[in-house]
């Protein structure tokens, strides 16, 4: 029997109602890489502006305004701020290109070494937090979408509204209060076993999970209303397969992109949570550097986190266009 095109099935060009030129993945890769490179140049520029131009001379900030002039001169040479700003900028970018982040004023160790020692903990905290957020958002979001306008849905709505409002650092304290003080299941102070990451990642995850929940719900409702779902149903596919193999897969695409962007906020949130849970991560390194006026460490740490943040966004962007060719239109 000759196949008759179903009126319910979308034609080749009707996806999202857009007709466009598909760009080969390679060109897209080049384009996004150029953009990443530009951002990577931009980040040190912002840091340079904030840390060296706003305060006048960082040597004065480090030494204190009433320090004797010879100490300040000494520091200027050490920090490289005895040159005019443009030359400083040039020198700094060149040393960054060689991955030279300078040496700490306190411990005299290379800043990059200090950062790389602390970074794994911060990264694992952010990843665990993101995992937690997805574990909350996806099941609850799907339930809200599938059982729209039921108790599930409105429970999800209340949860997300409240979850968004809970500052993660306060949530951290409350979790400590319940699960370390009242019922001592988890340790009160830091360490580096995975056990120590449980509470902080929940604290990070609930807040972001509440944001993602809404997204999952909206995306899922949108997908479930599309024509291919009707086709799949009329083919006689079981409802579970329609929901999870068809709709959820497509709904997750935008969600994962936003999750990627949220990852940067996770890094920021991790800085504060490390302080609450006494975890020796990058956040504590930067914070103690702020208190000790260890200028190169503040500079290097900020730069490093921003670079990781941009890199993650780049990768997510790339991954998204790889798995979803519809995006590759120019």
């Amino acid at each position, binding site marked *: 029997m000759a196949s008759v095109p179903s009126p319910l099935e979308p034609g080749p060009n009707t996806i999202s109602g857009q007709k466009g030129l598909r760009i080969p993945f390679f060109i897209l890769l080049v384009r996004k890489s150029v953009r990443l490179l*530009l*951002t990577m140049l*931009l*980040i040190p*520029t*912002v*840091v340079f502006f*904030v*840390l060296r131009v*706003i*305060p006048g001379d*960082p040597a004065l*900030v480090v030494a204190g305004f009433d320090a004797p002039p010879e100490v300040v001169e000494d520091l200027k040479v050490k920090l490289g701020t005895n040159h005019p700003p443009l030359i400083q900028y040039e020198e700094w970018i060149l040393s960054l290109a060689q991955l030279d982040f300078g040496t700490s004023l306190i411990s005299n160790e290379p800043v990059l070494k200090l950062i790389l020692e602390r970074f794994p903990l911060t990264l694992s905290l952010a990843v665990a937090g993101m995992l937690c957020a997805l574990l909350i958002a996806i099941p609850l979001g799907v339930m809200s979408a599938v059982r729209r*306008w*039921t*108790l599930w*849905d*409105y429970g999800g*709505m*209340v949860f997300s*509204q*409240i979850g*968004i*409002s*809970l*500052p993660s*650092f*306060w949530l951290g*304290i*409350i979790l*400590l*209060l319940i699960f*370390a*003080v*009242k019922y001592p299941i988890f340790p*009160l102070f830091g360490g580096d076993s995975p056990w120590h990451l449980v509470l902080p990642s929940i604290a990070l995850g609930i807040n972001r999970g509440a944001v993602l929940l809404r997204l999952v719900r909206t995306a899922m409702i949108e997908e479930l209303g599309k024509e291919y779902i009707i086709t799949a149903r009329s083919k006689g596919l079981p409802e579970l397969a329609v929901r999870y193999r068809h709709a959820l897969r497509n709904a997750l695409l935008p969600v994962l992109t936003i999750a990627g962007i949220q990852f*940067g*906020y996770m*890094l*920021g*949130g991790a*800085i*504060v949570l490390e*302080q*609450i849970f006494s975890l020796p991560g990058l956040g504590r390194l*930067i*914070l103690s550097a*702020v*208190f000790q006026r260890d200028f190169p460490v*503040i500079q290097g740490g*900020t730069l490093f*986190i*921003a670079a990781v*943040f*941009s890199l993650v*966004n780049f990768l997510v962007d790339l991954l998204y266009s790889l798995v979803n060719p519809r995006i590759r239109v120019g």
Partner: protein
Amino acid sequence: MRIRIRRKRQKIQKLFLFTSTVYLCFLLFAAFGSSYLAPHSPTIQDLNHRLLPPLTEGRILGTDDLGRDIWSRIVYGTRPLLIIGTISVGIALAGGLLMGILAGAMGGIVDSFIMLLMDGILSFPTVLLAITVVSVLGYGLGQVTVALGIVFIPVFARLVRAETKSRLTEGYVESSRALGTSFPMILLRHVLPNMMPDIIAQSTVTFALVVVIEASLSFLGLGTQPPEPSWGLMLKESRNFLYQAPWMAIFPGVALAATVFSFNYLGDYLSEQLNPIR
């Protein structure tokens, strides 16, 4: 059944809206009339009444490790909170309007340059950038206010730029230009009023963010300095007394969460109401 539940949802939304509005009115009242609401001084220490649990000896929410009344500290904490929020959002809004209108109206190199700068700022986690700015400006309330204002400029700049661009291409603007209206007048009469709803909604949501980040910075010891009352600072002080005085950690956080909730909810509501098309 479904209709009933949908009504229930609307009821919940109304309840949320009502609670948020009432709470924000309370905040305003507490900020202007702190002395009417607070029975004790927020800063004077009373070591004979240290770590009193809630509802003892006339202390509704108990006292902290220095014998200061927690309720009074929360009430007095509203003033710096609202001041920081208002000024920071004001700085961000002013900067964002300037940058956004410049970028949107001039286009070309100016546009690319400004947006590149804004993207540069956006490529830092907000808390981190605020910490960095505070590290050079010095710790304290004023510095944090400026830092947060700067950090949120790009959010407004992007919004204003997009709005400016789209408004300037609309028919009524072109007719107005054809009638000989000057460019600044077009901005003032047509572009700005039309973007007000989005700006108001965005400001409300940004206010909530500013409040949280200010509390985080005070918690880290970079914002409000002791003995001034600040919710973030109170949470920082509570960290060492989790065993003896859990109430020190609970109440300031509840106040903070309620503030964030109210501003967020109001922001959502405003953007829904002021933008009926969406």
